């Protein structure tokens, strides 16, 4: 088959909602886009462990401590599924980790913001995981089979994360004045970065059209962002808190909430490495990796010795 025929057969499959599997023929650009997206997603899970891990030692009750540890551990598990899904596209986990640690690969910019108070644990769960879920629910139906299947598992756990985040803020919102202030402050700080998680506006987004045609994405950045705003505006009322946007109001004609302009200069600055924690996050990943080098070497050496001993025994 010529490349043109292969591409046509490929697109036909996608149009018929047949999943693309690792051994199937796929356009190079499809492979690359998926690899970039899945590995970036895996890296986000791993780097995302850091801002929440930051509060494990100080969680205010034993129950909250256990929940937070379990949540951060879930993220490590998500990183594992996603690295495995990405490996089916031909790049090793070691290579992906190296790209993350060298700063070559990107991860979600949201994790370059600091977690300053306990309320940030609730706000991250509710807003950040809430934003991530909208994207992830869509990705459960993405055209690349291994990615879609990994997302199904991940979504189940993520919706639990979002609920626990909201529930933790609900407790604060019913607590003392200091707790309510802490809650409002966290929402104020995490609201705009959460909106930025959906990426540039559709008019500025370079990959969007092709990704939609290949059903890697099924909704545009702006559609998902709008869905998020509409959802959160209702939920924040239950907390008795407010969102830090004076332009937020119901638009009867659109049947959606209008909202203010995102600070795109801040967005691009954080993407380029100038966020409040970019350097610290990468440094933490590199430190863990470098300090673990002797452990990985020992595990390999031991496995090798064991294999040889079994061989000698068998012979």
């Amino acid at each position, binding site marked *: 088959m010529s490349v043109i025929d292969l591409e046509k057969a490929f697109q036909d499959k996608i149009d018929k909602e047949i999943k693309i599997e690792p051994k199937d023929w796929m356009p190079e650009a499809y492979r690359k886009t998926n690899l970039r997206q899945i590995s970036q997603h895996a890296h986000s899970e791993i780097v995302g462990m850091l801002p929440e891990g930051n509060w494990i030692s100080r969680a205010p009750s034993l129950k909250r401590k256990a929940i937070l*540890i379990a949540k951060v551990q879930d993220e490590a598990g998500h990183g594992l599924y996603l690295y495995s899904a990405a490996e089916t596209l031909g790049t090793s986990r070691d290579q992906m980790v190296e790209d993350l640690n060298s700063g070559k690969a990107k991860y979600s910019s949201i994790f370059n913001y600091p977690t300053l108070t306990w309320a940030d644990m609730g706000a991250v769960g509710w807003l950040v995981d809430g934003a991530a879920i909208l994207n992830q629910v869509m990705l459960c139906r993405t055209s690349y089979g291994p990615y879609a299947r990994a997302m199904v598992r991940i979504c189940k756990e993520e919706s639990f994360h979002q609920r626990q985040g909201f529930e933790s803020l609900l407790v604060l919102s*019913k607590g003392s004045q200091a707790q309510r202030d802490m809650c409002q402050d966290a929402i104020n700080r995490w609201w705009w970065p959460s909106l930025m998680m959906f990426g540039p506006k559709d008019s500025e987004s370079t990959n969007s059209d092709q990704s939609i045609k290949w059903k890697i994405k099924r909704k545009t950045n702006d559609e998902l962002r709008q869905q998020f705003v509409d959802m959160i505006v209702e939920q924040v009322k239950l907390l008795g808190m407010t969102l830090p946007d004076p332009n937020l109001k119901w638009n009867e004609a659109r049947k959606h909430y209008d909202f203010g302009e995102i600070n795109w200069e801040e967005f691009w600055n954080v993407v380029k490495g100038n966020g409040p924690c970019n350097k610290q996050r990468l440094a933490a990943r590199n430190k*863990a990796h470098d*300090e673990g080098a002797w452990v990985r070497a*020992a595990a390999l*050496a031991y496995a090798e010795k064991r294999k040889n001993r079994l061989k000698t025994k068998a012979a």
Partner: protein
Amino acid sequence: MKNQHIINSVLHIADTTLILGQRNAAWCAHGPILEQDIAITNITLDLIGQARNFYQYAASLINEADNKNETEDTLAFLRNERDFKNFLICELPNGDWAQTILRQFFFSTFQQLMYQKMMHSSDNQLAAIAAKSIKETNYHVKWSSEWVIRLGDGTDESNQRMKNAIEYLWSYTGEFFIAADYESIDVAGLKHEWLEKVKLVFEEATLSIPENTFMQTGGKTGVHTEHLGFILPEMQSLQRNFPGVEW
């Protein structure tokens, strides 16, 4: 008095599992291998779960005896350094991966033997917690033994790091077997079996047990290392700064 003894012995185990959990939790997101980050975090969760069971039981005993309003959280977050009764070994810094897994191995091997006894306690609540916890501890022993062997018999560097860890930690193992006046389990009687188990794993790991080392004590009676005074203020900060609220 008898009741106070039971309360103290329950607090000793609760504090021990909490403080070790608190230390191990620092590996979460910083482990040497993603799979092992998940594994040690699992152990951390088990330890904190066990701590909660013991604190809840201690709270119920205290409240019954003294008409107080203790909870798992008041006991964990509102007691001071001299009140904590955890083993010293739990509060030592994590050090490297060798030190962390060796501590886990020493402790879990002891805990397994201790729970085996506690499962037959005449105190039904303690027997039930022990029966539930030992399933977790069996895994902790297996996981940590495998790592002791892997690192001991891995590379020259990992072997040396294990030797350093043994050198550092050994003197904190004697405390396991010296009963405090409040303890009813014959912990001294567990020493022989513990030593045999350690020897067996060390042999496979090409490691050896130090001879004639002085043993540190004090944790069970609240005389700690200097480290605990840093762990508690961090762990307890929110409960101390915002007293009497729900979280």
